[in-house]
């Protein structure tokens, strides 16, 4: 059977087959590499404490499924408060950054003006400046203004920190919309406002979604600014609250993994729904080629 089949396979086909086999083997191994740590985190979140710290029998699937870690996260560790702070900050950041990005992106895409290329250059350079370096002077300013340990300070930092990249991204989305589309709508009797709402915004929708998510994720994922600018538990975001659980002599791994799982959920859901736009935005925003 095999030998009869082999007669019909040219050397080229055999080579292609071998190549394909390697390709899928590689993709399979990589998939495992991506999924394994996530799997490990999620199943730990559903294990009981005794199972987690049983050194003699490390289990690869929970023996007793439990929601205890999630429950104590909320009842004992004030996770609800962290979550609320994170949601407020990320949503607020995303809305403001989106407005800034639409205005700035439109200006950069549709106007010719002096200093434009310098501004774009500064946008790009600002992406390379280490956060840790600017955070010390900012700390001193906000300390003078008595704003340390407020959510307001984090909101300002998240907005300002995420704006440049989002403006650049939005600009490239605007640039993809031909000016003629806007003009055609005007010729057809649309007012400028109507043209914007009925023609430009729908075409721009992917850009709006991408920018919203970039800004939301940027604020949601931040740990550094949160650790530096907030000190009382009532002001902590999810990452800062979770960080406070490690470093103590008795690390509560069950709750930490439950918290980590919950922290990842929103970004994963967003990414799943709009991956195409995000990929578009990412490739357009940082590298134009």
């Amino acid at each position, binding site marked *: 059977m095999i030998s009869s089949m082999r007669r019909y396979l040219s050397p080229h086909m055999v080579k292609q087959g071998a190549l394909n086999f390697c390709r899928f083997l590689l993709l399979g191994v990589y998939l495992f590499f*991506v999924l394994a740590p996530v799997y*490990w985190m999620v199943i730990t979140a559903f294990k009981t404490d005794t199972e987690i710290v049983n050194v003699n029998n490390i289990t690869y699937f929970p023996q007793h499924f439990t929601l205890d870690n999630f429950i104590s996260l909320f009842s004992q560790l004030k996770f609800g408060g962290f979550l609320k702070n994170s949601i407020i900050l990320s949503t607020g950041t995303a809305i403001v950054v989106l407005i800034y990005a639409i205005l*700035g992106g439109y200006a950069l895409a549709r106007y010719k003006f002096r200093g434009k290329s310098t501004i774009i250059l500064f946008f790009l350079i600002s992406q390379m400046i280490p956060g840790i*370096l600017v955070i010390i002077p900012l700390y001193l300013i906000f300390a003078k203004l008595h704003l340390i340990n407020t959510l307001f300070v984090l909101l300002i930092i998240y907005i300002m920190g995420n704006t440049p990249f989002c403006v650049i991204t939005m600009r490239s989305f605007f640039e993809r919309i031909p000016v003629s589309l806007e003009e055609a709508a005007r010729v057809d009797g649309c007012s400028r406002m109507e043209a914007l709402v009925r023609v430009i915004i729908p075409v721009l929708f992917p850009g709006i979604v991408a920018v919203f998510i970039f800004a939301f994720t940027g604020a949601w994922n931040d740990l550094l600014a949160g650790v530096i600018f907030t000190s009382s538990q009532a002001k902590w975001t999810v990452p800062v609250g979770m960080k406070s659980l490690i470093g103590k002599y008795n690390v509560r791994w069950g709750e930490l993994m439950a918290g980590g799982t919950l922290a990842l959920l929103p970004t994963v859901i967003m*990414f799943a729904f709009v991956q195409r736009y995000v990929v578009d935005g990412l490739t357009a925003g940082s590298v134009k080629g």
Partner: protein
Amino acid sequence: MLRNDAKYAKKFQKTALEPYLLLLPVLVSMLFMFGYPLINSFLLSFTHYRLIEPNNIYFNGMENFVNLFQKDEYLGLVAMNSLKWVLGCVSVQFFLGLVLALALKKPFKGRGVYQSIIFVPWAFSSFAVGLMFRWSFNGEYGVINDLLMRSSLITEKISWLGSSKLSLLTVIIAMVWIGVPFFGIMLLAALQSIPSEIYEAAVLDGCGAIRKFFSVTLAYIKPTIIVTILLRTIWVFNAVEMIMVVTEGGPTYSSETLASYIYSRAFSTYDFGLAAALGTVFMVGLSAYALVFLRVTKFEEAGDF
């Protein structure tokens, strides 16, 4: 005529100001968030500034730098760690990202789903990924040790995070995990933009597979490779959160990089002058790297970006 002129002037002024007005929030953000702090940080590096001595702030010339280079016994170790950190993270991320992009170039059934799964880590936070890896590499209860024991590769559990030889490696693995999607996304997009005619021409010219890969594929996506490596190097160099979560720089600075060292110097000793001096050194190094990199790769000749 006069009215026309006035109208024209008004219109001209309006269009001249409009873009600046639209960009105002962004420009203010950048000045406040990057411009002022950078200048301030530079000035701070020549100042005696300790947060715990608010009434004892004065210009101290090069003293911070002298302290840094002559008295700081960990600076050499930390600088070396930074180099290993950047080289390790970026080279492996790039290699895996390129291999992945090449493997994903040809369509196959389920490619879309596969892609969306493996690119998800891009949206993950350093802190959550740091937690995952800190837990996986836990010396006692960690899955990595358990797997290695079960497959008889080791007989005794390894203290990954507690060993000064292995802690940096552990953080690098976590950083590679989170960073591959960026390269994968960028390089795949670049690969897909290569027109198939170029390959046909190369085949007609008698190019073999290897020659085709180096002279056509890599040559065509060179601008993307340069920009992604440049950006990623800088981001990895600047990254502190992963280190803060996985090892906290320890044990005894063995996984501390320059960026995380600035953080620990600033917020453990509150000597902001010294931390700023470290920052100035950091920025000089970063700028030099960017200039040299662009020069060496002959980026201007490689194409526009």
